[in-house]
């Protein structure tokens, strides 16, 4: 592989990282918001959210990406590839994250929030200062797990023409006729990215154990 192939690989890796990172950031927060709304059990809204989480979790990422990209013009939306890709990944990961947050809510001990309310905290302060920090600690392993699934599923967005870390290996081998070296390097880069997450997850688990939560 020559310098330009290396350059293309790193660019592909960057595309994978930034598109995944944006999707993860939106997906973690949106999942929390959905879990919060579902706590309120608002009729119709609740059923719609159940429908969304079921459909989004059951749809393959490739199908979802294609559907969003191809249907956008019909809906009068002018989506560029990156936005469509982020949308597909976000819709998918949000549904999984919403379930992770929801189980954290369900398992949160009532005694903990009672102790907070008893000191005069409003429900909002109780949520922000007592519930959320504990829920983050207990949910982090599940959330990080979902993050690595998302990164490993991200090559699906190549189907709408985004040149990510997997797609770029095709482009390189089309020129060099040597498919193996670029795909090997791509594999190592994926492992490095996921490795960072696993390291983060281990830190989180150690912290959770230390606090006996």
């Amino acid at each position, binding site marked *: 592989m020559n310098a330009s192939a290396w350059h293309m690989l790193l660019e592909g890796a960057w595309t994978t990282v930034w598109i995944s990172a944006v999707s993860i950031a939106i997906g973690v927060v949106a999942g929390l918001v959905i879990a919060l709304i579902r706590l309120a059990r608002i009729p119709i809204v609740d059923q719609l959210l159940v429908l969304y989480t079921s459909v989004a979790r059951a749809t393959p990422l490739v199908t979802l990406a294609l559907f969003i990209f191809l249907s956008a013009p019909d809906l009068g939306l002018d989506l560029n590839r990156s936005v469509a890709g982020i949308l597909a990944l976000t819709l998918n990961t949000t549904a999984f994250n919403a379930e992770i947050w929801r189980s954290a809510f369900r398992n949160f001990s009532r*005694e903990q929030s009672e102790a*907070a309310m008893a*000191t*005069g905290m*409003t429900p909002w302060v109780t949520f922000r*200062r007592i519930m959320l920090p504990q829920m983050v600690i207990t949910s982090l392993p599940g959330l990080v797990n979902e993050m690595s699934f998302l990164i490993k599923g991200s090559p699906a967005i190549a189907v709408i023409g985004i040149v990510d870390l997997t797609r770029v290996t095709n482009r390189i081998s089309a020129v060099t006729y040597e498919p193996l070296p670029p795909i090997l390097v791509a594999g190592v880069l994926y492992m490095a990215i996921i490795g960072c997450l696993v390291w983060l997850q281990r830190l989180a688990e150690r912290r959770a154990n230390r606090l006996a939560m």
Partner: protein
Amino acid sequence: MSEANTSETAAVSIHHLSKSFDDVEVLRDVELEVKTGEVVTIIGSSGSGKSTLLRCINWLEKPDRGSIHIAGQRIGVHEDGRPMPVRELAKVRAQTGMVFQGFNLWPHLNVLHNVTEAPIHVQGKSKREAEELATALLEKVGMSQKHDSYPNTLSGGQKQRVAIARALAMQPEVMLFDEPTSALDPELVGEVLAVIKDLSAEGYTMVMVTHEMAFARAVSDQVVFLEKGLIIERADPETFFTTPKTDRVRKFLENHDTPSSA
């Protein structure tokens, strides 16, 4: 002093309080008045409604009927029957401090921050001000050496002493103790009771549910006996423990093996 006057100055005044869980009446028309500086102990067998009564005082449990005033302020509902908005309810609740049977310290915060959390985020105290207050309170409960420890590294007795400091930090009108020593190993009960005893000597107003009869006798100004949601006896501790009026209380005290003098 006139009737109206006493209820104005009372730390807690409870009138016609009733509460049912499904079909079971756990509190029936309870009347209770706790004067400022007074220690009231609620005694009764399990299921008599004593914890529910205590939890109604800070509205963790919502009564069906009746009224509760904390230092003259109605809690939970307005006088005209309108439900109280959560912010307002939280303000009245802040006038009470509660100590739970299971401690309920916040595991993600260290000892110091367990105590400073509410003063900072409820009262809006500065971090420095809250930490000064917390330092003094942790010293009072004998936990000065443990500022940086996390709750899971503490013994039950230590946890409960931190929980007491946490409740005191809001400088409440009344402290509510819900069986504060029931979850403790026997050898740790003493250190927690000693702290509560100090507080009573300092003039704190307290309402306490407990099974520690000798302790109740030593610190209380008023003992209340609850049976099936009814207050069937109330008296000063000497009268209550030496010459109970009802057979029910006499039997209860026999079973609890109370020492003849405190």
